[in-house]
């Protein structure tokens, strides 16, 4: 279980302090598929990065499975079972897909195990396993490799920051299938996705609407989705994918 207690995050942009996250308290129960939506600039991605430990909190407390992780590093949080998929996957010159999956799994997994993770995200393992994670890969391919690294880590909490950003429609359809599969998997895993995509919101157990650094609404999909459908908080594929 993840608990956020009165967390705030400010940045000093030269003209004084800007509040990005304002006193948010939130409980994310185990084994749920939770989607955080909201307008651009509302603080969604920042919240995801605060959970992963990429930015330090200005104030407040984060509890993960009963442990206060507020002052724990990115590495410590990762080792406790928090996974984070970047909005813009990072490229590496020289590191191959296999290298990255081996780092992610924390052990020297065999090539065939690594291939299983790639197959799960719909990539032909043979073709990709020895490819470098560099700019020769498309946005959609990188996104799927990013997700494969989360699968390889077998995390307790997987955080996905706008997985639909920067991918084409075909890749987006694949992405939805991967999430549906993860959703149906019997692994005990909490999935937290930052997204405005109606189709991702549609497979959520719970939806949180974040705007202006605060929680605007929170509840089950059935409670929240009808209210926000067709608004900027829950847009269709065509309005988002360009």
């Amino acid at each position, binding site marked *: 279980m993840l608990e956020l207690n009165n967390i705030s995050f400010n940045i000093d942009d030269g003209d004084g302090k800007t509040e990005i996250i304002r006193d948010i308290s939130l409980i994310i129960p185990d084994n749920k598929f939770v989607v955080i939506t909201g307008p651009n600039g509302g603080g969604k991605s920042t919240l995801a990065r605060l959970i*992963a430990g*990429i930015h330090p909190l200005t104030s407040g407390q984060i509890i993960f499975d009963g442990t206060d992780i507020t002052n724990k*590093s*990115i*590495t410590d949080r*990762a*080792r406790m079972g*928090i*996974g*984070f998929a*970047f909005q*813009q*996957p*990072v490229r*590496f*010159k*020289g*590191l*191959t897909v296999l*290298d*990255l999956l081996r*780092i*992610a799994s*924390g052990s020297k997994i065999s090539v065939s195990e690594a291939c299983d993770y790639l197959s799960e995200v719909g990539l032909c393992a043979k073709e990709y396993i020895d490819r470098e994670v560099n700019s020769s890969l498309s946005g959609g391919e990188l996104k799927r490799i990013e997700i494969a*690294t989360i699968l390889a*880590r077998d995390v307790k909490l997987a955080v996905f920051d706008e997985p639909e950003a920067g991918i084409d429609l075909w890749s987006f359809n694949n992405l939805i299938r991967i999430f549906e599969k993860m959703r149906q998997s019997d692994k005990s895993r909490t999935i937290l996705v930052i997204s405005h995509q109606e189709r991702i919101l549609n497979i959520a157990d719970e939806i949180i609407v974040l705007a202006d650094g605060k929680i605007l609404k929170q509840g089950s999909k059935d409670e929240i989705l009808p209210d926000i459908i067709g608004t900027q908080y829950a847009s269709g594929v065509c309005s988002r994918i360009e």
Partner: protein
Amino acid sequence: MNIDTIQQRLLEEVADLHDIPEGAYNLRANGKSIGRNTTANIDIQSKPEGSGIDIRVKDGTKNESVHIPVVLSESGLKETVYNDFFIGEDCDVLIVAGCGIDNCGNQDSQHNGIHRFYVGKNSRIRYVEKHYGSGDGSGKRILDPVTEVYQEEGSTVEMEMVQIKGVDSTERTTLAELKEGAKLVVRERLMTHGEQHALSVYKVSLNGDGSSADVVSRSVARDTSYQKFDACIVGNAACSGHTECDSIIMDSGRILAVPSLEANNIDAALVHEAAIGKIAGDQLIKLMTLGLTEAEAEEQIINGFLK
């Protein structure tokens, strides 16, 4: 053949040799040849004045290899060695060179290998050269190699030059002249640390129509080390050339990259690229979110980059 454990370790580092190599070889330790083997197709002869060897590969020799590693484990030894390779026509051979210096003393140890390659028509050679230094003496480990390559029509030379650890000072010069349809591919990997200095100079002349060169260097400069990469491709015919220097700087490391191109023919197509920067913060963060510490992440990124 007598080699001690230090020499054995150096041989493993520079030539991946755990045993006596198969095929032709010449092992040189502390200024003397300590073992040699020739084959029906590959002959190795000492130069009359004792300053190096001539390696002659017969026409049509395929799938054979020549190992010529050098190890220095005596402090204060300085030598310049001339090795000439005469490769016949239609050959396909692997040449493994390399030099390992272990200096535990307080005098400088230096090996300068001058390698000249005369590559016959339509031959292909793969040349691997690794440099390695170890030992905790105050004496420096210095390597100043010169490589000259003369390629006949239709020949291909692939060179892999690696210097990852322990060489205090190096000044590497590589000169190449290519005739029609000849191809040169160079992959250089270099890491410097401490107060090391490394200079790498290339001058590749594409003299024949259809000749091509691809010279790529990847390097990492750590601590207060300094590197200079100076690669010049000269297009004197309808040819294509590409040079690239991709570097990571860490700590107070410094790198000067001077790629240059000279086109003397209207049909010469030449490209250069150079990029220097520190490890991207996002790369470190990504690997840390996979459970690595910052130091482990850095190591993985560098290992991958120099692989």
